[in-house]
């Protein structure tokens, strides 16, 4: 068995590496946001194209929304609270592992903003509707793949947890 000091060191090291990962992701979002901010500034100063400004503002807001969603989700779901009563912890775990979490809807504005911004992209030689089809097709495909992964990886867990909750709540 490891000593308490060894375990403490391991925990602190895990905490540090996870914190570094989070900081890295936030820095990534922040850098992209700064880039769009610069694009907006440049277009305004040089009296550039209004379409380019609208595109950059939409993508900037989408990035900020993604970043806020990431921070919120990370804070809320990073750790399960093991110090709560078993029944409460199980109910929260079931909610966390369900395929469609209402909290995920907070990402919807970011997706709409990103779609809106990208629809002004002139580099793509496809029509507006083809672009929409491609964008929402990719989102739907991602959601479907996520659902299939959930069925194999998390559904058994949700079933197990539900059985435990039913057993705890039964009067016998």
């Amino acid at each position: 068995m490891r000593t308490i000091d060894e375990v403490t060191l391991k925990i602190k090291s895990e905490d540090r590496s996870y914190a570094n990962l989070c900081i890295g992701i936030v820095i990534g979002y922040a850098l992209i946001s700064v880039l769009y901010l610069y694009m907006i500034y440049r277009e305004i100063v040089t009296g550039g194209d209004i379409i380019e400004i609208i595109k950059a503002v939409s993508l900037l807001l989408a990035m900020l929304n993604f970043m806020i969603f990431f921070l919120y989700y990370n804070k809320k779901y990073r750790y399960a609270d093991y110090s709560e009563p078993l029944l409460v912890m199980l109910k929260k775990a079931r909610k966390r592992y369900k395929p469609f979490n209402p909290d995920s809807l907070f990402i919807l504005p970011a997706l709409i903003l990103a779609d809106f911004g990208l629809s002004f992209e002139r580099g793509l030689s496809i029509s507006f509707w083809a672009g929409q089809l491609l964008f929402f097709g990719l989102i739907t495909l991602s959601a479907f793949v996520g659902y299939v992964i959930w069925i194999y990886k998390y559904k058994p867990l949700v079933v197990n947890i539900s059985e435990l909750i039913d057993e705890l709540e039964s009067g016998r």
Partner: protein
Amino acid sequence: MKKEDNFTQLVKENSERIMRICCYYGNGGISADDLYQEVLINIWKSLSKFRGDSSLYTWIYRVAVNTCLTHAVKSNKYYSTKVTPSPLLLNNLADNELFDKIEEEERYEKLSEEINLLSVIDKALISLVIEGLSTREISEVIGITEPNVRTKISRIKTELRSKFKIEKK
């Protein structure tokens, strides 16, 4: 006191208690030692949330039971987890109405076997009874009402008695 000092002191004072809970579950694809480490990690993560609403003693049991049960559920092997209580702790199960004091080695082994066949929730409940927790404390750990705890424990004891058929001395 720093979080690290708090943690070290808490673990030193409760290591045997935590290890006993881990031993009850340390057969479902993970050793009791590994479970013990997971419990310590979860104590560390939850330490800042301890507000003193329950006793520290109950709080430790919560973290230990939740960690062990979560592992059992995630590994999907919880029906094969094993309760290996000591004869002394098993005596906490003894009840004038249901059980006499369990002293004979053969009786202890048979009762231990029967406990291992219980469902994961029943096993969790009975492990807390073996640990000597009161109905109120078990209710705080599990999160169900005291009458529900009493009903469940009474039913488990009745089931054990029917299988075990302890003869009163």
